[in-house]
Structures are given as structure tokens and as C-alpha cells.
């Protein structure tokens, strides 16, 4: 039963969701006056999202609780993580949430700037990585470098100042647009179709019970 019930549930839910998309009257089907069947399904998904969040909270607490208990390397960061995790959750739940100045200040003055800083550091890493790794060793790498330069210049005003969009071939910007719209779009389509077929096969395997690793454990 431990094995069969999740497999049957997975199959039924996949089939149901598929049918909702395939059969329009089913999507609009009302189980009673003004109550749609799909809205009930949708709320069950929302409930699962919330439960997933709760499970994540428990899991993080267990993992980092163990790290603290056994004084593993960098355990002090686990203490900090749990303080931030529970502190922010408590502040949001019991001290006004979005109406709380402290709650909003933490988001505006800590979370957003930290997020931006992490992303901004990419500029430095990319500069350093491009300098160290972008070496012309053969014709292919030369071609890649030329294309990279055109796309970079086509994206910024400096490229426009050197070879403007009103001049021959539309300047760097015109060539960049052509590169993105024709060769790039063609390859993106090929990649997209490949990814979709792979994902479709993986979902089909899960729905039909051929893929069981998501259930955890090792006895199947």
C-alpha cells in the first residue's frame, strides 16, 4: 500500500489535470450553484503549496538543528539561519505583517539590496572569466568572439556611437537583431523542442508509475 497509493494518486491527478485542459466543459463544470469543480482542485493545489512551505520549514529546522547539535563546521551560520527564518516568520505572522514597518524595512533594506548585490557581482565575475577563458584557439572560437562582440556592442549605446543603427546593415544593432532573430531563434526552437520532449517523457514516466524515485526510499 505504501507504494501503490502514491502511484495511483499521481496517475489520477495527472489524468484529471490533463482532462481539465482537454475538455472545456469540464473546466467550467459546476458541482453546485456558483461552485466550480476546478476551483476546488485549484484550492487543493494552493493548500499543497502551503503545506510544502510548512514541510520545508520542518526540514530546514531538522537539518540545521542537527548541524547545531553536533557542532558541525560553520554551525554558527545554522544558528543565524534559524534566527532569521523564525524571526521573520514571527514578525510577519504576529506583528502586523505588511503593515509592520520593521517587517517591510527588512525586506526593503536588507533582502532586496542583498539580492541586487549578489546579482551585480556577476559583472565582475564575467569580466574576470571572459578575460581568462575567452582565448582564440581555432576558427570556431574566433567566430564566437566576433559574434559576442557584435551582440555586446549592439546592446549598448557605445555600439550605436561607433556604427549607428541608421547606417549600412543597421549597424551593430541591426546585425545583432538579425543574429538573435534568425540563427539564434532557430537554435532556440530546436533546443526548446528537445527540452519539451524530454520533459514530456519524464512526466509520462512519473504518471504511469515507471519512475518511482520521487517517492524516496530505496526498496523500490
Amino acid at each position: 500500500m505504501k507504494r501503490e497509493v502514491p502511484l495511483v494518486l499521481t496517475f489520477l491527478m495527472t489524468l484529471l489535470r490533463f482532462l481539465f485542459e482537454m475538455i472545456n466543459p469540464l473546466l467550467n463544470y459546476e458541482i453546485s450553484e456558483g461552485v466550480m469543480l476546478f476551483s476546488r482542485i485549484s484550492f487543493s493545489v494552493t493548500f499543497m503549496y502551503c503545506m510544502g512551505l510548512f514541510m520545508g520549514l520542518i526540514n530546514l529546522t531538522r537539518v540545521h538543528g542537527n548541524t547545531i547539535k553536533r557542532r558541525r563546521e560553520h554551525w554558527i551560520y545554522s544558528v543565524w539561519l534559524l534566527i532569521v527564518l523564525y524571526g521573520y516568520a514571527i514578525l510577519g505572522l504576529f506583528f502586523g505583517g505588511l503593515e509592520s514597518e520593521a517587517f517591510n524595512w527588512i525586506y526593503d533594506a536588507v533582502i532586496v539590496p542583498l539580492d541586487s548585490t549578489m546579482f551585480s557581482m556577476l559583472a565582475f565575475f564575467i569580466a574576470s572569466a571572459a578575460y581568462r577563458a575567452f582565448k582564440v584557439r581555432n576558427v570556431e572560437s574566433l567566430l564566437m568572439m566576433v559574434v559576442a562582440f557584435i551582440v555586446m556592442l549592439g546592446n549598448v549605446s557605445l555600439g550605436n556611437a561607433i556604427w549607428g543603427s541608421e547606417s549600412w546593415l543597421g549597424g551593430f544593432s541591426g546585425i545583432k537583431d538579425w543574429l538573435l532573430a534568425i540563427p539564434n531563434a532557430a537554435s532556440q526552437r530546436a533546443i526548446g523542442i528537445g527540452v519539451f520532449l524530454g520533459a514530456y517523457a519524464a512526466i509520462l514516466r512519473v504518471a504511469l508509475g515507471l519512475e518511482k524515485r520521487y517517492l524516496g526510499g530505496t526498496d523500490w
Partner: protein
Amino acid sequence: MEWLKRLDSIDPRWVYVIMALSLVFPVLKPIGLAISINKETTIPVYNWIESLQPGDIVVGDVSFSGGSEGELGPQLQAWFRHCMQRGVKVIMVAQWNTGERLGYTLLEETAEQLQEEGIPCEYGVDWVYAGYKPGGTTLWRQMQLDFWEACAETDMLGNSFSDLPLMQRFKKWDKATASDLIIFSAGDPGVGTYTTYFPDYNIYVGNVAVQVPGAMNTLRAGQIKGLLAGLPGAAEYELLLDKAGKAVKLMDAQSMGHAWIMLLVILGNIGFYLGAKERD
């Protein structure tokens, strides 16, 4: 010529310092390089808002967080300004909970500026921020059937939809109420939600620059109608509105940053080539 061979071993600290200077100086003292407007990507978004009538409703989606604020924040603000100038009503949702409040803060900032300029931009009447709702794509499908129920009848601030005049016109998110939408996307969940579940709607996209190549095939295929591409997209939109802002100011910094990267690649290759000749 000996120094030329050392060009492929520049101390990384110099790389970082010069990059920092290249980015900071143009922000403090803009150079004012000309910006050309992309007819394939930016113009369709601008023309879309121009073609709407005052009172029409459009939906916007904030699917980004602080990491992409530099590019998508100015896009969102310029687009929102355009909508308000044209009298177009805006309803915002958010697929990313981490960006929900950020999106609201950006719009609130623009709304205050607009009101100071005498352009009507009243919350609840001209725009509503429904915000993030958990439930993924299934909930987005549910929004099409009953937007109020899907959003638990409240906006991000906890206001009841029944107290917001604009929401009286938006019980369902179908083609009759709002057939046009724009998503400001920095990843997943993002554009896929709309190309999959809203294929008949007119979808416009504001993307971070790194995602633009991946979105070009959907633009070419007509799945999306227009695309604001990274910071240049935001700067172009600001220029179209004749209201140069943050994006235009940052474009010079981006130019200098790109120039430094290209110079580094060229210097690295000179050093590599000369070093290789010597080794041979």
C-alpha cells in the same frame, strides 16, 4: 615587447577595480551616448499602450526579485507611467513571492510622481496590486474563471476587492475584461505560464537581457507581441515617453562595462598569442 606578453596575466584586482570605475563614473557623470530605439522589440510594446482606449484594463505580472530590479524595475515603471498617462487601468499580479513587495514599491513610487505631475493615478481606481498568490499555474488558470475567488478577494495590502472600484469590472480574467497582458520576467515561473495557459491573449514581455535570446523565437512566432529587452529596452521606453530616467542614466555605465570586458578579451588574446609564439 616583453610587457605585451604579460597582458594575459593581469592581476584580477585591476580587472575588478577598473570594472567598478567603469560602472560608477558614468552614473555620477553621464556621457550621454545616443540610444537607438529597437523597432522589432520595444516599439510594439509602446504602440500597444498607445492603441488602447482610456478605461481599458491591462494586466501586468511581476516575476522578478531584487536581483533583476536594475533591468526590470525601470521597465515596469516606464510601462506603468505610460498606462497611467493614457488612462489605461492596470491590475498587477506576481508569480514570484520574493518580488511581490518590490513590484508594489516601484509602482507606488511612480504613482506618487504621477500624482505630483497631475496625472490621475489613484490606487483602487486606476490600478490595483493583487500581488502573489500561491498555487502556481493551476491558480493562474483559476484566475481566468474567477479572479476574485482565486485571489481570496483581497489585494496584497489586504484590501477587499469589493472596496476597490476597479475590481468591480474585473471579476474574471478573460478576453472580454483584459485580453492584453505584460509579464516582467527574470526566470521561472514566468513567460511559460502565459504562453501555455493564455495562448489567445496578447502577451507582451519585459525580460532581463540574458533571457532575451531565449525569448526571440516566441517573438518571431507571434506567441508574444513585443519585448522589452533588458536595460536598453527600459531606456528606449523612457525615451519614447520623453521622460529619461534611471535606465537612460545607466546605459552609459553598461556601455563602459561592456567596453572594458571587450578590451580585456582583446588584451588577454594578445598576451596569449605572443606567449604561444614564444612557447612554440
